[in-house]
């Protein structure tokens, strides 16, 4: 059972990663391979995010906001600003959270094998890895597209109903529907790309 739970946790984190890493401008042709190839092109993407957690029992979603930085070579920095402040980092070591003394690796979320696997698969634009666990359905063109992920296995279906990702030049919206009826919507309205990290980002990511 421990393995099972560990697996799920890894899966969940990997999904967020996978989704986060899909932020990328998309250009001409539009199949999965092309999309994948382009994902790995920008060195750094950053922008604000708005996360809405829709819990079935609550009339209003739990809304949080912040900014993110995704560096192809290093990992992801997820800086929650409101309603509370909390920084997260995901890299090849695993998931870490910042407290008063610095970055703390989250126990049980350290470099799970599968997690790393997916992480690097996505970094390298390897949609084949994602395709093993999900059915991928890509529609639209480079300016306005939708990618739908449907879990393949019975096990995953018990956790997620489906995941929808849509965007234009960049990923703009991710919706994750859990089988229990809750859902999470993640919006990234103003992402931009750049060639390198700034100093403070470098200090956090590329130490």
């Amino acid at each position, binding site marked *: *059972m*421990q*393995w*099972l*739970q*560990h*697996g*799920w*946790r*890894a*899966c*969940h*984190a990997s999904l*967020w990663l996978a989704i986060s890493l899909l932020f990328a401008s998309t250009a001409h042709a539009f199949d999965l391979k092309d999309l994948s190839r382009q994902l790995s092109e920008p060195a750094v993407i950053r922008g604000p995010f708005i*996360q809405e*957690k829709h*819990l*079935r*029992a*609550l*009339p*209003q979603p*739990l809304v*949080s906001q912040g900014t993110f930085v995704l560096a192809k070579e290093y990992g992801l920095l*997820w800086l*929650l600003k409101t*309603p*509370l402040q*909390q920084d*997260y980092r*995901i890299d090849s070591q695993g*998931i870490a959270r910042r407290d008063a003394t610095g970055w703390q690796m*989250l*126990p*049980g*979320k350290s470099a*799970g*094998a*599968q*997690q*790393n*696997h997916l992480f690097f698969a996505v970094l390298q634009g390897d949609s084949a890895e994602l395709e*093993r*666990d999900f059915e991928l359905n890509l529609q639209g063109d480079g300016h306005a597209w939708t990618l739908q992920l449907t*879990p*393949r*296995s019975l*096990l*995953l279906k*018990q*956790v997620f109903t489906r995941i929808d990702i849509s965007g234009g030049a960049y990923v703009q919206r991710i919706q994750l529907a*859990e089988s*229990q*009826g*809750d859902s*999470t919507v*993640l919006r990234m309205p103003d992402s931009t790309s750049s060639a390198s990290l700034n100093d403070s980002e470098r200090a956090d990511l590329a130490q």
Partner: protein
Amino acid sequence: MRSERLLPRLFLVLLVAVIALAGWQWHDGAPVSANLMELVPGSAQDPLEQRAEQRMQEPLNRELLVLVGSEDRQTAVTMARTLGEQWQASGVFEKVQWNLQADLPALRHQLLQGRLAMLALPDRKLLIDNPHDFIEQRVQSLFDPFAGFSLVPSRDDWLGLTGRIQGSQPRHGAVDMDLTSGALVANADGRNWVLLRARAHGDAFDMQLPLKVADLLADARQQAGRAQVQLLAASGLLYAANGQREATREISWVGGGATAGILLLLLLAFRRWRVLLAFIPVLVGMLFGAVACVALFGKMHVMTLVLGSSLIGVAVDYPLHYLSKSWSLKPWHSWPALRLTLPGLSLSLATSCIGYLALAFTPFPALTQIAAFSAAGLIGAYLCAVCLLPALLKDADLRPAGWPLELAQHLLNLRERLLRHVPSPALLLILAVFCGGGLWHLQIKNDIRQWVGTPPGLLEQAQAIARITGYQPTSQFFLVQGADEQQLLEREEALGKQLNALVAGGKLHGYMALSQLVSPPKAQIEVRDALSQLPGHWQPLLALGIPKDALRAELTQLGQLPLQTIESALLGPLGEPWRGLWLGPTGQGVASMVSLQGLSDAGQLRALAQDLQGVKLVDRLGDLNRVFAQTQVSAAELKLASCILIVLLLLKPFGLGGAVRMVALPLLAAFCSLASLGWLGQPLTLFSLFGLLLVTAISVDYAILMRERIGGAAVSLLGTLLAAATTWLSFGLLAVSSTPAVSNFGLSVSLGLAFSFLLAPWAASGREEAPRA
């Protein structure tokens, strides 16, 4: 004479009776065992400890752990599934598992029911002592995008207790679940390794099962090899299969080799086909040994058989005693030759039996078995050689070859010439220097692992599996006892605190204890009482929009949750990994075990358990190795005792001086072989000591032969040479055994025999007696 007709008949009656007994013993199949634990001393333990030990060992002896590795994950998963299905169909296994079938509703149910009882110690503390932070952390986790999937939806658990329980479950190793197939996968060395577990119907001590499992695995390996998939396997069953195959191979080698060598020697020396009849006492000896062993112990261990096969070389000495007289007695007749040698023959039986039976007084069932087997075997061989064989050889016209006698004479001359240049005292001095130097280099080594031949292949695979999965069970564990569940779990928590420190210090990878699954009843009540303070702190949750009514309802529900017992917690799916640890009610209360993973220093555990009440470290291997060391001392005492006994026995026929001299020589031979072990860089083990114990007994024979000088010095030396050669043939072959203990035994006996032969002529010197025949 009457006795010449009567004795063979009486013996035949006895033989038929023994054969009948053997037939009855074997009618239900071979009474042979391969259980290593039957060979080691059962320390004085209480039944509870024994039960705990059996419980811990059971999976090792029944489970097969396989990693199916391929660069492509799908290939590995497919192969694991194929093998899993084949093995399930084979009927050898009770259960084969290659993936996890999660019962989510059952998991949710248990988590919800266990919200108070299964909360880990730090979480309990936080809830009771610091409800403000507890609520803050809950708010944080509701926004945490990486908090992970919670099995229970937030609306059923606003306080996030199930999430905390999920997060505090101990995790070992680097195994993740493949989300598509449910297979358990580890990544290492650029490969995906899928875990395949199978549980056999019987255990490793069932004689047929290990071989079946090994065959299935060999087939699987071939199949996997064709698909470029690598298999790693670990199981006590594989060790057992290997041990059985090795034992069979070694019994055929040692038994076959010694038999062939001895028959050849007999033919070469006596040049008559009929002399091969001298092998009958050997067969009778083996029969008597086996029957006595089964009669006394219920069954025979394979190790007894391997070591017992060396008896061939000793048993053939009895006929050789009087056959070798054919060089001097011309014409040779069987009965008169026997009568002439009977006193010596009987003395040598007595001394050998003393030597073997001394082994029986060590605390090792293994050696007791070997001693019983050998003593009974020697008596059988002796009786056959004395009662039956002379009748069979009655009209034999032995024409022994001349060359062995010439060789013996040549050796004697050589010795004479040597003694003329270097007198005996000087030789003794040289020998003493040799012994001193060798003993200086001698290292003592005792380890139960010497008793099992560990083929490097199996060991490497087991190590690779431990490395890849991070699953490294240790043989040590803690036995915890308490008057009731409250005390038991409290004691486990106290132990857990100490173990946590070891884990933090990198001395231990992890551990499994029931206290990780369920809290003591009093702690459950404390948590329930602490719930009432939460409304004073839950404003942040209300601020998120969570209805006050929902929170109130949850508190009411939590307050009504029943207290969980250990058994009710174990019943649910989350309890599965802990189930083996619960020993349940005992006479004095309840008991459980705490198992360990990846231990680097066993010494610290012992100190740790001493300070905790009701906690006991069970370290069978460590205990055994200590027993080994203690036994070395008692082995030395036994040796001394057997020497005194032999001196007493020889006192009458040879006088004090003669008796002491005849015992001193084998002792000196034993020292020489000890020294040789030192010079050769071979360790001194308990087994080499036992071997030397035996040498003393056997080589007194040679001294008797040389001392009695029936037929002259050359004939006596020849008799000694033949006896030593046959004995050496069988013990020397033991040295090739793959089991370190057996090979060590063979080596020390061979060395001892060689020195005994070299020293034997000195048994006669001193006062030169005229040949008695």
